[in-house]
Structure formats: structure tokens, C-alpha cells
């Protein structure tokens, strides 16, 4: 059986018909036995219905003529303001994008770059080792390969 506190929490969703069948059924079962919760739900339903139906006093016709005339007269300035707002919004978006990109480049990239450097050094050693092994098995056909070997030797000595 649902407790009063839970019914109170769900009362708005129940009145708006936003509860799934099972919790709605549990609320209804509770309402059949609890007059306090029935009064709560009844009041919310009445307030909601009053707000939807009750029309407050309306404005006199002159207000509408005046308001529409002002809207027409103020439209160019308002359009400029809307365009400016759109531009500012775009600039703000662009500034955020730039800031995010700068953060990525300034903070994340150096960190990643160090990782890449470390990984790259291992790969270079591996490739040099493989290439040196390969070249040593091949006849030294040209000057280029000799230079490569010399460079490998130099790089290997630096490592």
C-alpha cells in the first residue's frame, strides 16, 4: 500500500496524467481509503481547473491598437537587437570553442605528446633495429644505404 508521503510526491504527476498505469493505480487505491490525500488531490485538480478556465479582466481595445502600432514602429530597432544578440551568441560560442581548443592544445596535447614521444622512441628503436637487420642481410648496393646505416648507428648511439 502506498504511503501518504509518496502520494503527496506523486500528486502533481497524477493530476497531470503523467504517471504510468501501475503507480497511477496505486495512487487511486490509496485515495479510496485516505480522505486527506483525496482532499489534496481534489484541491490541486480544482486549482488547475480554475487557472485554465478563469479569465482575468482583459485590456481595452485601445491597448491592442497602441501595442501593435508600437510593435511595428519598434521593429527595425528590435530586429537590430535580435541580430546583435545572435551575433553575440555566435561570438560567445566561438569564444568557448576557442577556449576549449586552446585548453586541449595547451594542456592535453603536451601530455599526449610526451606519451607519443615515449611510444615513438620505442617504435623508432624497433624500426631501426629491424631496418639495420634487414640492411645487414642485403648487399650494400648504393651510397644511400650506407648513409642510412651510418645514421642508424648514430641514432643507436644516442639512444
Amino acid at each position, binding site marked *: 500500500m502506498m504511503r501518504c508521503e509518496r502520494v503527496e510526491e506523486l500528486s502533481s504527476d497524477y493530476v497531470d496524467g503523467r504517471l504510468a498505469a501501475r503507480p497511477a493505480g496505486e495512487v487511486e487505491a490509496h485515495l479510496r481509503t485516505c480522505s486527506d490525500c483525496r482532499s489534496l488531490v481534489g484541491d490541486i485538480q480544482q486549482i488547475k481547473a480554475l487557472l485554465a478556465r*478563469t479569465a*482575468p479582466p482583459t485590456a481595452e481595445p485601445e491597448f*491592442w491598437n497602441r*501595442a501593435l502600432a508600437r510593435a511595428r514602429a519598434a521593429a527595425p530597432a528590435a530586429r537590430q537587437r535580435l541580430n546583435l544578440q545572435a551575433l553575440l551568441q555566435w561570438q560567445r560560442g566561438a569564444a568557448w570553442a576557442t577556449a576549449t581548443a586552446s585548453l586541449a592544445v595547451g594542456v592535453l596535447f603536451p601530455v599526449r605528446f610526451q606519451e607519443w614521444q615515449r611510444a615513438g622512441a620505442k617504435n623508432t628503436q624497433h624500426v631501426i633495429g629491424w631496418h639495420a637487420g634487414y640492411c645487414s642481410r642485403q648487399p650494400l648496393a648504393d651510397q644511400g644505404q650506407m648513409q642510412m646505416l651510418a645514421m642508424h648507428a648514430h641514432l643507436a648511439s644516442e639512444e
Partner: protein
Amino acid sequence: VAAEAFEALVRQNRDQLYRGAYRLTGNHEDAQDLLQEALVEAYAAFGRFQMGTHFTRWVMRIMTRTFIDRTRRRPPFAVQSLDEARPTAEGERSGFDVPDTRLDPEAEMVQEMLEEPLQEALTALPAEFRLAIVLCDVQGMSYEEAARAARCPVGTIRSRLHRARAMMRRTLGPSLRAVYERGEG
């Protein structure tokens, strides 16, 4: 043509638009200021309105932004009694034009009796709670539409609506029961 279409739509939906502005502000002067500002913005942006969609909800979205900006800039709107006459442009004092609610006399009487306590209870709410109530209960927007208009999550609208109704019930409950009990008696 756009100007004529805009004017026609405003005139066609004027009661609903005014109701939204009045419920948000609680008095005619601020309601008219708010509505005027929203209509200027709406007219300027009318090129973006999709014909055939809900015009009042589109203007209410604009009015919502205006209302939020205003409540951030200015102190809360003042409450005005319905019994109080308001000055006209000519300096005379006149009563309010009460629209034809087209209800049976008994329901009309109940609504007339509750109109003032209803507006007072609404005006006593914090602005963001009042906005949730006006968008959902007065204008009939779904939680999702109201959330889009108020630019907040749907859960925020749901929670504000729930708390606002609880607060309204505390304020309005006695008047509500008194009127209905009198009706039954």
C-alpha cells in the same frame, strides 16, 4: 502581408496572450508593459514563426524570456486589486473589461469569487514557480514545452510545478473550500 498576418494572429489570440501576461505580473500596468515588450520582439522575429503552429505558445516563449529578464532586473511586480479602478489615457478612471467566460451562471459566480484570491496566491509565488504554473496550467503547455520556454530541464519544471501547487493550495485552500461549501449549501 506579414504585418497583417501578425496583427490578425494577435487580435485572434488576445485574451489568451493577455491572460498569460496578467497571470505572470498580477496587475494591468505591468501586464501591458510585459505584453508590449513581448509583442515588439515577436513582431521583429515574426519571419521565424512557422504559420500553422501555435501562435500564443510562440509569443509566450518570447514573453517568458522577457519576464525572466525583467524579474532579474527589477523588483517583483505589484499586485493590483480587481476592485480598484485604473486610470485611462484621458485621465479618467474606469473599471476593467471582464471577458465573457461563457459558463453557466453558478460556475461563473464561483470563478468571480475566486479570481482575486487566485491571482493573489499566484503573485505570492516566487517568480520561477509562478512561471511554471502559468506555462503549464494557464497556457496548457506540456512539461517539455514549458521547459523549452523557460530554458530549464523538464525535471525542474516538474518540481517547480509541484511545489508551486502545494504553496497555492496552502494560500488558496481556505477560500476554495469556503466557496465550494457555500455553493453546496
